[in-house]
Every structure is written in structure tokens, then in C-alpha cells.
């Protein structure tokens, strides 16, 4: 219980810090959004009027207090450009990002488990080296290059999938591959190494002695026990995945939070930038805490702090 309370308290401080950092990140930076929206030649009356409407004329601490209390109510003000509430904008874009993240994880798991298992079973053979080379290649290929290449081959060349947008299941495939490949590569390595570790255990020898086939041993006794480290790694990698989604969504004109963030940054739509960065980070914090808690629940040694 103490462990739970201290974890949650720590998380609250982090969340507060994240929100503060996001606010000051944008407000202490050179460049005036009002001038950016209206241009240099605008009349000073107009500038003052817009500044007041956006609340930028108030002292910085008042703005900070307003931002924080607004964030608590999921109220981030209006978008500078689209003139609609930021929360509305985000809610309309959120499903697409959740869906892309989900299908990417799915694809990553579908590649990582067979590949990692195969590599572990055929350790030190050409199969193993090939799988690990793929894994190394997977983390070295940036998704902003893989995306266009996939489009070139499968959309423009073969015409199998649409080039961009989110219309139907066909349009999910390429963005999910572009986003999921790096994750697949990282997870495949983890599946391989944790499986290799497990395969040396006594109960595997027992299973062999019982006369189970190699396949039964690996699937029933090996993979199940190798699962926990893989899930942990997946939790840790979710942040990278969300970061990658920002770029992937831009490549594929995917109507999600990532593209919204980049568009907002390019057009200096600060309320939208603040809200998106805050939201993605909060989600990440939430996942990390959940991972910690699930782990503590599964392994009492962590709660009590003993080894």
C-alpha cells in the first residue's frame, strides 16, 4: 500500500512538472504568436485586440494558472487558426491515432514472436544471424524513409494500398508497417534473448525428458515464461512508438494527433501544441505507472524493496 501511494504521489509530481514544462516551453521562447498570425504589417490596435482575446496580455503567472486550471478540466482554449476548442479538435483526431498505434503493435508482435522464436531455436545458425540482421536493420531504418519507400512500391507501383489518409482497412496497412517495424525489431531481439534464458531452465529439461516435441516445449513452456520481459519492453517502447507516430502520420497524411501536432507546430498554433504534447506525455506516464504497478503486483519483491 505504501508502495502504491508513493508511486502515485511521484506520478502526480511528474504530471505537474510535465504540464509546467510544456507551458514554459512555449511561453519563454522567442517569437510572438500574434505577429505570426497577423503578420508584421498589422495595426497595433488589431494586435492588442487579438492579444487580449487570446489572453496573452495577462501576466505570465496568471496565464500559467489559467492554463493549469483549464488543463484539469480538459479545457485548453481555442485553436488560434481553426477557432474551435482544442479539446474538440483533439477528440476528433484521437481515434485515428489509437487505431494506428494498436495495429502497429499488432504487426510488431506478429513479426517479433515468430522471428525471435525461430532465432532462439536455431541459435548460432544462418537463420539466427539473418533474423538478428533484420532486427538491426529494423532499428536503423527511419520510418520517414520506410514510409515513402512502401508507398512507392505498394501504392504507386503495385497499386495495392491507398497512398495516404484513413479510408478503410487497406489504408491502415502501410502506416502500421512503417510505424511497427522498429518495434518489431526491438521485440524480436527481446523474444530471442528471454527465450534463450528460459530454455536453460530445469523444467525445460523435464519437458524434454517427458518426450514433448521441440515445438510443444517452446510454445507451452518457453514462450509463456518469456512473455513478461517482452510486455515490459513493449510498455517502455510505447513512448518511442507515440513519437514515431508523429512522423508516420505526417508521411501518410494520417488524420491523427501526431499530424495535428506537427501542423500546429508549423503554424504556431500554441494552444494545440501545448495540449497535444501534454496529452501524449500524460498517456506515456500513465502507461509507465501501470507497467510498474502490474509488475509490483506480479512480483512482491519489488513492493517491499528487498532483493
Amino acid at each position, binding site marked *: 500500500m505504501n508502495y502504491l501511494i508513493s508511486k502515485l504521489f511521484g506520478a502526480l509530481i*511528474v504530471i505537474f512538472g510535465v504540464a509546467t514544462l510544456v507551458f514554459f516551453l512555449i511561453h519563454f521562447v522567442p517569437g510572438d504568436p500574434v505577429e505570426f498570425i497577423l503578420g508584421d504589417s498589422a495595426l497595433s490596435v488589431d494586435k492588442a485586440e487579438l492579444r487580449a482575446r487570446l489572453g496573452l496580455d495577462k501576466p505570465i503567472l496568471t496565464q500559467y494558472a489559467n492554463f493549469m486550471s483549464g488543463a484539469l478540466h480538459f479545457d485548453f482554449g481555442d485553436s488560434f487558426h481553426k477557432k474551435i476548442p482544442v479539446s474538440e479538435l483533439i477528440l476528433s483526431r484521437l481515434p485515428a491515432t489509437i487505431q494506428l498505434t494498436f495495429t502497429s503493435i499488432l504487426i510488431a508482435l506478429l513479426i517479433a514472436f515468430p522471428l525471435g522464436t525461430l532465432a532462439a531455436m536455431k541459435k548460432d545458425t544462418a537463420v539466427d544471424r539473418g533474423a538478428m540482421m533484420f532486427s538491426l536493420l529494423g532499428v536503423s531504418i527511419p520510418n520517414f524513409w520506410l514510409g515513402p519507400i512502401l508507398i512507392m512500391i505498394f501504392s504507386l507501383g503495385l497499386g495495392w494500398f491507398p497512398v495516404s489518409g484513413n479510408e478503410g482497412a487497406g489504408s491502415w496497412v502501410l502506416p502500421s508497417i512503417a510505424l511497427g517495424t522498429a518495434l518489431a525489431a526491438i521485440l524480436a531481439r527481446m523474444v530471442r534473448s528471454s527465450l534463450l534464458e528460459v530454455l536453460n531452465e530445469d523444467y525445460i529439461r523435464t519437458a524434454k525428458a517427458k518426450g514433448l516435441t521441440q515445438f510443444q516445449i517452446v510454445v507451452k513452456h518457453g514462450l509463456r515464461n518469456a512473455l513478461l520481459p517482452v510486455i515490459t519492453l513493449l510498455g517502455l517502447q510505447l513512448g518511442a512508438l507515440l513519437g514515431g507516430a508523429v512522423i508516420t502520420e505526417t508521411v501518410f497524411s494520417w488524420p491523427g494527433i501526431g499530424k495535428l501536432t506537427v501542423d500546429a507546430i508549423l503554424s504556431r498554433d500554441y494552444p494545440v501544441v501545448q495540449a497535444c504534447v501534454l496529452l501524449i506525455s500524460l498517456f506515456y506516464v500513465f502507461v509507465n505507472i501501470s507497467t510498474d504497478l502490474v509488475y509490483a503486483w506480479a512480483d512482491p519483491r519489488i513492493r517491499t524493496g528487498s532483493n
Partner: protein
Amino acid sequence: MKFKLSLPIVILIIWVLMAVLGPLLPLNLTEIDYYKIMQGPDWQAWLGYDELGRPLLHRLISGASVSFFVSISVVSLAVVFGTLIGTVSAYYGGWVDSILVRIFDIFLAFPGILLVIALAGVLGPGIDNLVIAMVAVGWVGFARLARAQVLSLRSRDHVQAAIALGTKPFIIMLRHLIPLISAPIIVEATFGIAAVIIAEAGLSFLGLGIQPPDASWGNMIKTGSDYMLSSSNMVLVPGIALILVVLAINLLGDKLRDHLDVKSR
């Protein structure tokens, strides 16, 4: 073993040579030639021409300089700041440590690339802002690593002896602690260079980093992907160069880790 290492090393040597010699060569980066738009390779341009008739090879070399100098400066600055802050945190412990660890936690709560994108976005384009944004995010990883390492060294006899002799804390950190934690830091820094190369290209791809007409592998990939159908060279060339360099650095990092016997995280 030696042979395996040699291909990555050759790639890295070519990369460094392109980066260092690039600024000295008479490269044509801005001169537009309408007669050569997206033409194939010839003697003046071994990799063909881009959408404005500029030699791709020249832009590739210039992009190599950008990736090299950006990644080296970002990682050096991040290592220096991160190691110092992490060492101070672990050495002093107490409230200094608690506050610093909270700050690390807050920075680590952001997906790294997202914070870099947001920072680079609000700071505006340009190579200095790019470096600032990436250092502002990158130091934390090194700080956390240095802190963890120093924590395990702090009670060693030679450190206790130095404290007993009245050595100044700064000297203890610099002479007795930091040299001992250099191996994991070097390994982490190697992987850091690969990550920064990708991040720089990614930011430039998004239009937040190096701006045209200056060349970066990232903005070359961006332009190339707009002209994929007419000239696939334009997206293939910078992408393959980027992947080869990143792959070579990652392979080198793996070797270094084995060689220096650093446990993987």
C-alpha cells in the same frame, strides 16, 4: 572477427571524410540548371541530378557534413552536461539528488522525439536551434546513467580515502569517479550518435531542421519522396546513405559494448 568489423569501419571512414572534406570541395548546392532536372548520372554527377538540376552527390556530401557535425556536437554537449549533473546528483545525495531525480523523471516522461520536435518547432528552424533542442532532451539519458554508475562507486575505498584526505568534491568527481564510469558512457554515446543522426534527418524531413536550399539527408528524403515517380534516386540515395551510417554505428556500438564488457540495459 576483424573482417566483420571492417565494413562498418569503411562506411564510417567514408562518412567522416565526406563530412570533413565536404566544406572544402567546390560543391554546387544552389546553382539551378533547368537542362539537367532529374537527369541520370554523368561524369559531373555520379548519382544524377535533383529536381532543380543540382548534382545529388554534392548534396549528399553536404548532408553528410550536417549529420556529422550535428551528431558530434549534440552528443558531446549532452555527455558533458549529463555526466556532470548525474555525477553531482549521486555524489551529494540527499535533497540535491531527490530534486534532480524528479527533474530527470519529468524529462523522461516525454517521448524524446516529441519533445525535440516541439522544442525545435518553437525555437524555429536553423542548425543552432536544432542542436539546442536535441541537447536539451538528450542530456537526461546520460545523467541518469552517470548517476546510477556513481551510486555504485561512491562507497569504494579510493573515494572514501579521497574524502578522508580532504580532497575537494569537484576533484573527486573528475579524477576518481568520472574516469571509472567512462566505459558505459562511451557505449551509450555511440548509440546516441546514431539516434541523433536519425533525429536530425527526421526534423529536417518535417521542415523543422535544416531548411532548403541547404542540404540535409532528411530534407533530401522529403523532396525525394515528392518526386518518387519521376526519379527514385532522389529518395533512395540519401536514405541508403543514412541507413548505412546508422547501421555501421549501431554495429560498432555492439562491438564496443562487448569489448568494454558493459552489461546491456
